């Protein structure tokens, strides 16, 4: 179902560039080994890159999308061995991985800005950065990874600390991206994309992040420790070997059940809108991510978007 574009997508390129990070099975004498948690955007079995169009979405399969920007934060990465024992996981430090007093965070950015839809053509509110990152790297000790769990977003404690300690512009990389202006804290997952339905062009914006975060209108989490609706998707991948498997980010699954229309005061046009507030597409998108739209709680077993590949 993926129509190949002319340009080799940055999403695929990121995967190729990073596949080496797994570091083979070079377990050291202390029983620790390099580990890489690799991500790839997919449509079913097919990797999706910046030049690709995903077809057959929405009612009657009449809609197609091309991804322009796909970024998300990952936290609480926890590996387990085959017996279900928790392994010690330590993430590297680099421009996409930050160690804070209140926890660790990594950013996956599967889209650059130069190829295909990622260049922003056809999207009137593109975002995105030119840098890309398809893997989280670190070391794991105490056994051989066979299962992994993680969250898509910032832990509330880390978010509170980062907001309290930094200006919006001064936060350390990768936390200087994707803030929803400080009153709204951070977005955890951003996917911007073009939409075509029966030949008519539209735009798609899926922005997942905590809401009801308090504050005085300038900084979130000043008057509370956690947002009212945390909206942090959980992922649990059983039978996951990081040397063999990658984490699929399934665009078709993320948009399943969405009606691909946006109704403004004057017209109904092709498109998808969810900014984690009261947009009509939010309950469906949240459900696909295993999130309860009413409460903001997460259930990994209900998350159909992230799976082992």
């Amino acid at each position: 179902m993926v129509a190949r574009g002319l340009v080799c997508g940055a999403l695929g390129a990121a995967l190729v560039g990073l596949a080496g990070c797994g570091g083979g099975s070079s377990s050291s004498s202390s029983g620790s080994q390099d580990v890489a948690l690799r991500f790839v955007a997919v449509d079913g079995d097919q990797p999706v890159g910046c030049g690709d169009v995903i077809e057959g979405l929405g009612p009657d399969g009449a809609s197609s999308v091309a991804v322009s920007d796909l970024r998300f934060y990952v936290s609480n990465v926890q590996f387990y061995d085959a017996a279900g024992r928790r392994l010690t996981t330590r993430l590297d430090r680099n421009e996409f991985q930050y160690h804070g007093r209140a926890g660790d965070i990594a950013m996956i950015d599967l889209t650059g800005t130069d190829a295909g839809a990622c260049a922003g053509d056809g999207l009137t509110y593109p975002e995105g950065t030119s840098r890309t990152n398809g893997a989280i790297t670190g070391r794991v000790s105490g056994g051989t990874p066979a299962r992994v769990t993680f969250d898509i977003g910032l832990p509330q404690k880390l978010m509170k600390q980062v907001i309290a300690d930094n200006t919006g512009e001064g936060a350390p990389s990768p936390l200087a991206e994707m803030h929803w202006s400080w009153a709204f804290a951070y977005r955890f997952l951003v996917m911007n994309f073009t939409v075509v339905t029966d030949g008519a062009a539209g735009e798609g914006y899926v922005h997942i992040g905590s809401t009801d975060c308090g504050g005085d209108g300038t900084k979130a989490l000043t008057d509370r420790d956690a947002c009212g609706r945390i909206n942090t998707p959980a992922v649990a991948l059983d039978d996951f070997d990081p040397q063999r498997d990658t984490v699929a980010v399934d665009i078709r699954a993320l948009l399943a059940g969405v009606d691909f229309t946006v109704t403004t005061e004057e017209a109904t046009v092709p498109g998808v809108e969810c900014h984690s507030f009261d947009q009509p597409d939010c309950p469906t998108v949240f459900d696909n991510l295993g999130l309860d739209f009413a409460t903001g709680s997460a259930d990994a077993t209900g998350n159909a978007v992230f799976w082992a590949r």
Partner: protein
Amino acid sequence: MVWRVASLLALALLVGCGGGSSGGNSTAAPTVRELLRLPDHFEEPAIPDYNPLTAEKIGLGRRLFYDPRLSGNQTQSCATCHQQARAFTDAKAVPTGSTGDRLPRNSQGLSNVAYFSTMTWGNNVLLELEQQIHVPLGSDNPVELGVLDGNREEVLARFADDPTYRRLFADAFPGSEPLVTLNKVVFALASFCRTLISGDSPYDRYYLGDQTALTAQQVHGLRLFNSEQFECFHCHSGVNFTISYRDANSTPGTITYPFFNNGLYNIGGDGSYPPGNQGIYELTLDPFDKGLFRPQSLRNVALTAPYMHDGSIATLREVVQHYVRGGRLIESGPYAGDGRLSPLKSGLVRPFSATDEEIDAVVAFLESLTDDTFTSNPELADPFADAH
């Protein structure tokens, strides 16, 4: 949509001079933060390595900024169109150049100009002030200050022959000959422009914890500004209220170069703007780039009327109403068209409902970005006026 950026073409012209101020004084040189008197909630701006900031260049640049001898016919200075009391704008829809040419675009406010990722209204290749300042100095169509091929040496000689300027140039660019060059003028002006820091408005005091700095109406307006109803914050966020932003911590991989069509025109129904003034399209000739302009900083916006790239909206309230409507309707004349229906308009400029009270609140919040300290700061004022 222009989100990429073209090459650093003008850099090559610029690297020839400057450089020199690495003198080894025993007293520690002031830091960038000290030279710019940055508030704590401002990051350090990005400053090109080829033009390190010094107090001497700032002082020289301030004098040049206000000196009409820097125009070909000695009738205008930078300050003609960039007046401190108006946050360095001129209250005109569009200005007139030194030789009478009518310029196509509204004079830019210069508040915090050091932090933009691109310079001017609609240009995606001007990345540094050192590039941009050559435009008002040397443009010949239209003529602005009119320092052109035919008179450049004469203009520079005015400064080279002036004892005060001889001393200021020598201090700013020690040991460098010839004493006065156009690039030195530009580097000094860029250094002064970086000191135009506005961060002491009522909003800033509120941000820093003074709950009394904003009225209840302004706080309400701030929340509306940051709401999914008004959507202002998508383009006007961060310390400078624009996502066209970079600072010393930005990296090539993270800087963005935003330009948007806000539905101001829709001539012929294809999203066109008035001919010759179509934003990025003038550079790229890509039809999808028609009407793409940089999101402006909203710092001191209550002082910078009239608004938009062509000064075609008179008041702040009308600007907010323009966004509520989701584009401007021009019913007749050569520019007739409904901007709300523009196929090139940003997906975030959509009609929505707002009460008069809500619009008033957003305007009141925007007024809280007026920084009286900035507009009255004597260090940014006309040095020739000091002498009187």
